[in-house]
């Protein structure tokens, strides 16, 4: 509430953008912007889901995002088999995979009474295996229409960025204006108090894990269409990325207090840092180290403030 923690991620993204374009003398700024929007869109999708989960409070985290992306990508491409007219079916299948994984995750948390981190970790093993089994090493191309859509632009803005933007607005409404968002935040601050205030804790948590898995599945579907086929490691980088954009975006790691705009700022920033360092001729090593140092700095600075919850 007090302060706008997301401003920093946007300022950082803008500074990096300037730093890059100044170096190149302004050439390629448009292309850089478009690329940033496209790739940020993927991080935004998984980041939004992870943000809702993290808002649920300490210990809540979804480690099955990469596996869900991979499974949704492979299964939906297999169902569509590159044929025209199957786009909607593919999308529905991908989302259904998300629902199934989300329900499965929460069922494990509840039934085995294990922390979310181990439940989503172990389910990710099985989901990943299912993906490998479905895929069998073949690379199926997405339907032409979807491939074109995913790399296309509308009024100079990448279609994927528009999709992500629409979902971001939806997520903002859900978090800031809806009853569901209020309940998630209540659970994240004090689960016991939330239960004693009539909040249906299990129901809200189930919905949150499903939401996260569905967003991951959608992201997997889009990544597969964008890159011309599903790959078994296509989700790998999004595990840490999904957590990183939530943290850098200024959401509280301890839960209860999240914000949506920061996800976009952080996602743009993460991509732009990579391109800036590439432009400067620095390699992947420096890039990774800087990313790590940024996360550490953000968490150190954020903890220095007023939040001192025991």
């Amino acid at each position, binding site marked *: 509430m007090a302060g706008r923690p997301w401003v920093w991620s946007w300022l950082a993204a803008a500074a990096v953008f300037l730093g890059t374009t100044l170096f190149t003398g302004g050439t390629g700024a448009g292309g850089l912007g478009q690329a940033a929007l496209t790739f940020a869109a993927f991080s935004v999708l998984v980041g939004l889901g992870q943000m809702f989960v993290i808002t649920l409070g*300490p210990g809540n*985290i979804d*480690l099955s995002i990469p596996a869900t992306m991979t499974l949704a990508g492979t299964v939906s491409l297999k169902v569509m088999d590159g044929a025209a007219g199957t786009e909607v079916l593919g999308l529905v299948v991908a989302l259904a995979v998300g629902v199934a994984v989300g329900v499965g995750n929460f069922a*494990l948390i509840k039934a*085995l*009474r*294990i*922390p979310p*981190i*181990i439940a989503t*970790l*172990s*389910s*990710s*093993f*099985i989901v*990943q*295996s*299912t993906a*490998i*089994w479905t895929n*069998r090493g073949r690379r199926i191309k997405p339907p032409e229409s979807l491939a074109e859509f995913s790399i296309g632009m509308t009024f100079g803005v990448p279609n994927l960025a528009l999709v992500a933007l629409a979902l971001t607005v939806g997520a903002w409404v859900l978090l800031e204006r809806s009853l569901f968002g209020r309940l998630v935040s209540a659970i994240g601050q004090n689960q016991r108090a939330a239960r004693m205030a009539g909040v249906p804790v299990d129901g809200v948590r189930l919905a949150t894990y499903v939401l996260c898995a569905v967003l991951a599945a959608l992201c997997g579907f889009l990544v597969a269409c964008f890159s011309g086929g599903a790959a078994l490691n296509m989700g790998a980088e999004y595990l*840490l990325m999904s*957590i*990183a954009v939530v*943290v850098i975006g200024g959401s509280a*790691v*301890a839960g209860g207090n999240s914000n949506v705009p920061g996800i976009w700022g952080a996602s743009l920033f993460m991509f732009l840092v990579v391109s800036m360092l590439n432009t400067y001729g620095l*390699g*992947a*090593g*420096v*890039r*990774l*180290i*800087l*990313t*790590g*140092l*940024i*996360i*550490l700095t953000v*968490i*150190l600075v954020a*903890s*220095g403030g007023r939040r*001192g919850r025991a």
Partner: protein
Amino acid sequence: MRRIPAEALRVLVPAFSFVALLAAVFWLQPRAMSYLGLNLLFNLAVPIALATIAQMLIIAINDLDLSIGTFVSFVACVTATYLHDAPLVGALILMASIGVYALVGAVIYLRDLPSIVVSLGMSFVWAGLAVLILPAPGGAAPDWVRALMTVKPPLAPMAVIASVIIAAVAHLIVMRSSFGVALRGVGGNARSMSRAGWSVLRLRAATYALAGLFGVMAGVTLVGLTTAADANIALRYTLLTIAGVILGGGEFTGGRVSAIGAVIGALTLTLAGSFLTFLRLSNDWQIGAQGAILFLVLAVRLVLNRREGAA
């Protein structure tokens, strides 16, 4: 009648599942029941077991280390380059990295930070350093490391003996020594610990340093087996070690861990892959089987705990 104490149960369940899996493997493939067969089955278990002990130490004090995989990769890269070419520099780098672990442990406590996010940040740092040191797969294992990992002791293969030694040493440190008691005390009831006059800060830093040491040993032995390194060599370890600790009877909170259990957990996960190969099932299901075994053991433990709670 006294029921079986929870501590014994903690090791018995993973031990039983391990023996059952091993029996299944032998039944499917009797030739595995040989010196060579056992060595093949468990070869890669040594570094995983060491890394699992590292993770177990962190879990014992209610934290979680998401950077252990990249850290082991980093150590592997240092081992295959500096430790091979300039042993002194290499050793210094590795010692410094243990110091960084201690520092991370101290900072997490002093600023009351979530270990998940801090170790997430550190995982990027280690990965970056690994890429800087070894941009492309390569390097070479120092001769002594290679010799250590390919030694052929009588009676049982190196991997088996090494696992037993790792389990025994870790058990002595964590379960038997004063330091081990204190570190598990921090996990169990940190408030009483500081009230009784212990420095929780120092204990936590020391625990992280010890975890760093085991991580270093994991990286060095891994290169001894593979003879070369690359920056992504051990990324899987982060998730494998968490699974191994839990499989071995550890719990996420409350300082309830078992060193022997953790090593057995690591061996079980290694074995799960081989089991599928012998079943002539496709390798696709290897990690899936690891997940399934994890569930199975957790479910068994839940049933046992419930029974104990009812008693």
